[in-house]
């Protein structure tokens, strides 16, 4: 499980990372990085790197990184992520916690924390952050396990109509959560799985017919 820190100022994100690293539990690690030029890159990054929670700064346009200055700020980042990852935990850690643009996004984030307050009372804030991340991962894991069990039942032909519907609902939720090329691959995979299941249905029907004939 990982915490991702996004800040255009290298010194600040490095210091925050050190702060967090000094207090996180063993299973957790921290990544810090400057903002991506393209917002779309975040979604695959999050899924590929198993990011569980994000700490993002508000003013992301003040410094360049590798000669790139991004065209968005923290509140824009929040809007984008929310459109793709509805329940993903995001905290804003910023010196500009009073910015009106940010305040308007208050309901879209888990918290807006002043940077100095964060470093003054890290033991107050970090457990909340860890809990949010943990909760997100655990929620996801439960649904994946559930889908796996239902898939086994489909193969065995023991699935109920309700369970099938539940599988489709989880599938839909997974699709909304991970709409990337990789996720499209998952989409294709699921379709193939469904295709295979349909083929199993046809095979089962034929076997039943054969057995019936033999009788």
């Amino acid at each position: 499980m990982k915490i991702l820190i996004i800040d255009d100022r290298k010194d600040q994100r490095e210091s925050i990372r050190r702060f967090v690293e000094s207090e996180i539990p063993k299973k957790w690690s921290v990544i810090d990085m400057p903002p991506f030029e393209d917002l779309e890159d975040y979604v695959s990054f999050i899924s590929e790197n198993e990011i569980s929670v994000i700490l993002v700064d508000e003013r992301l346009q003040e410094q360049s990184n590798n000669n790139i200055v991004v065209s968005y700020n923290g509140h824009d980042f929040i809007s984008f992520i929310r459109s793709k990852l509805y329940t993903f935990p995001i905290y804003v850690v910023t010196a500009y916690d009073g910015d009106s643009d940010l305040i308007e996004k208050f309901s879209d984030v888990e918290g807006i924390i002043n940077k100095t307050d964060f470093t003054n009372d890290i033991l107050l804030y970090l457990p909340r952050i860890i809990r949010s991340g943990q909760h997100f991962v655990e929620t996801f894991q439960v649904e994946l396990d559930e889908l796996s069990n239902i898939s086994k039942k489909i193969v065995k032909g023991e699935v109920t109509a309700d369970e099938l519907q539940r599988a489709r609902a989880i599938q839909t939720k997974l699709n909304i959560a991970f709409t990337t090329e990789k996720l499209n691959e998952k989409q294709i995979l699921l379709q193939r799985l469904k295709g295979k299941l349909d083929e199993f249905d046809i095979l089962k029907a034929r076997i039943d017919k054969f057995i019936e004939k033999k009788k």
Partner: protein
Amino acid sequence: MANVTKNFTINARTLLTLGRDSVKDHVTAILELVKNSYDADATKIEIDINIFSDNPSIRVADNGCGMSEKQIEEHWLRIGYSAKRNETFTSQFNRRKTGEKGIGRLSADRLGAILCINTKSLEEKVFGLKINWKEFEKEGVELSKVPVDVIEQPQISIPGSDIGQKTGTEIVITELRHQWNREYIINLRKELSVLVSPFDEVTNLEISLNNDLAPELNGIIKSEFYENAETDLTATFDEKTQTITYKITERLENKNSKEGQIEWTNISQKVGSTSYSSNLSKLSCGNVTIKILFYLRDSSSLEGTNMSLNQLRSFLDSNAGVKIYRDNIRVKPYGDPGSPEGDWLELGERKSKEPAGVARARYRVSPTQIIGAVFVGRDDNPELVDSSSREGLIKGQAFNDLRALALACITLIESFRHKNAKEKQNIKRDKYSAQVTSFKDKINKFEEKLNTIANAVPSEVKTEVYKALNELEEIKKESNVTEKSIAQLLSEKRVLGGLATLGIASAVFGHETQSAISQFNISTNLVAHLLNKDPLEIDIINEELEKARSYARKVSEWGAFALTRVQREKREHKEVYINKIVEKVIKEIKPIFDSANIEIILQLTEIKSKLYAMDIEAILLNLLTNSYTACTQNPLERKVKILVTFVNISDFQIIVSDTGNGVDDSIKEQIWEPLFTTKKNSEGKETGTGLGLTVVQSILNDLQGSRNVKQDDDLGGAQFIITLPRN
């Protein structure tokens, strides 16, 4: 017993070292040869540079006095000999000798390995030598042992020989050492132009260049500096009408010119007393044409040229003085530097008696700033007779009158320049002071009139007039008090403008300080946190402490920047260098621009002016905060360019450009109004103060400056042009 003696010997290579080290490049080496021709009183010098022929060569030939075989042996071949040490001026034309002393000829080695010199003096036949510089490169060879071949049947091609020129020197260099290109040819032309007179009528030196590398540059070398005269005058005198018809043109003031006619009797009084007496009522020198070019000996004269200050000064040193030409031939020694008769108008003495600057009525030009030509002819000026001595004219009435006429033309230039300077000075004073002065002038004139009336009226009315005069006296006292109040208010306004600028800058740049403080807090908190951990992570602790120190310094720098903005010395009206003020502000503000990845480009000309440093800083800072904001809206390219340059001798500009989005034509005037801002956040809400450009406009109003805004052709964003008078 006789003393045993030893002698120094010289390694032959030393000769080459002397020559090669004495000039910086091969263009200078050619120039040294040309200067030798100039010093030989040549009137024609030919330079041929043939690069593309089978046997590339450089030829410098002249129709100077040439050298005899004896002169070659005793002078040209004697290292370190220079006629120029003892004789500063040439024998025939009294030119100030220009070449390097004694080693110029050796620098020809820079040009090529083989040098052939053929020379013809008046009394002797052609004599020629061939020098192979490679012979001097041999190790361990004594200089005097290296033979120099005498050419058995020397031939010479003297420029102008077709019209009877009989003396001269021709140098041909082969086995060229350097690559030549167009730039070198251009540079050579520029250097040569310093030697020639700016007047087309003058024919005492013609230098022609012929080359096969850039044939479009071939031809007779013309002076590059003719167009650079600050002021030029052309005048003709008609003896019959005793009238001077003149035209004076000022170069940089939009080529303003004044044309006029003035009778001699109206200007004769202004000529002033001299050691010569002229005829105040009528001049007897005949019809005369006079041309005078006035130059400033500073970098403002180079505006619009690609010449250097050194070249300008060399040009003036070679050509300054007012020369007399009869039928276009120089009449020595008039206008010759160093000759007692050279300054025949006594311009030097005039200037030393009246050293006042151009703003004073008794302003005089300096002789080193004038290049003049007085054109007379045997037919038009029969009264101007040659002296029986070697040179000059008989100092009779005609000569004295000619002198007075030339001085009158000098006086015309002085009056013209003085008048223009005064007009500009009056404009330059801040408008409030000018208004007060105007008011006081009117009061004084009114007082004079009342005094006149008081003397003329009957006694019963006189009392009333005196009462009025007393009241006027009270008004004058009050106007003095008002003048002081205005001065104080202006000073306070200046300080407020400075403080407003600081406030605006803080609003824009303040977040950098806030970020610095934030980082300082984070780092110190982290260090405190880590010091409670076991084991101690010393490396990280040290790194974070260093960060804290670094950011604390930034905060301190911003504090110092803020405090120095309103220092007392910046509120004093004194002579300052504009470029240095800009440099200092940029140095202080650069870290903030660096943090935002904004590149600052400076192009600063050294400009001195008398003004308040605070005004310049306020203008610059407000423009820079605008540019900073504009650049941060462009994530791709962030540049700000600051240019400080002359417009003309009286005005300068500060130009600030950026890579922002520019200023739309529709709001180009609105942006200067109070509270109008284009700075908005991502949701379109106004976030700027709308006061920065208002402060700039206010300062410009006080200083009688002007402003313009357009798109910068290079950076693409806005270009703000501030024009200010130079005091």
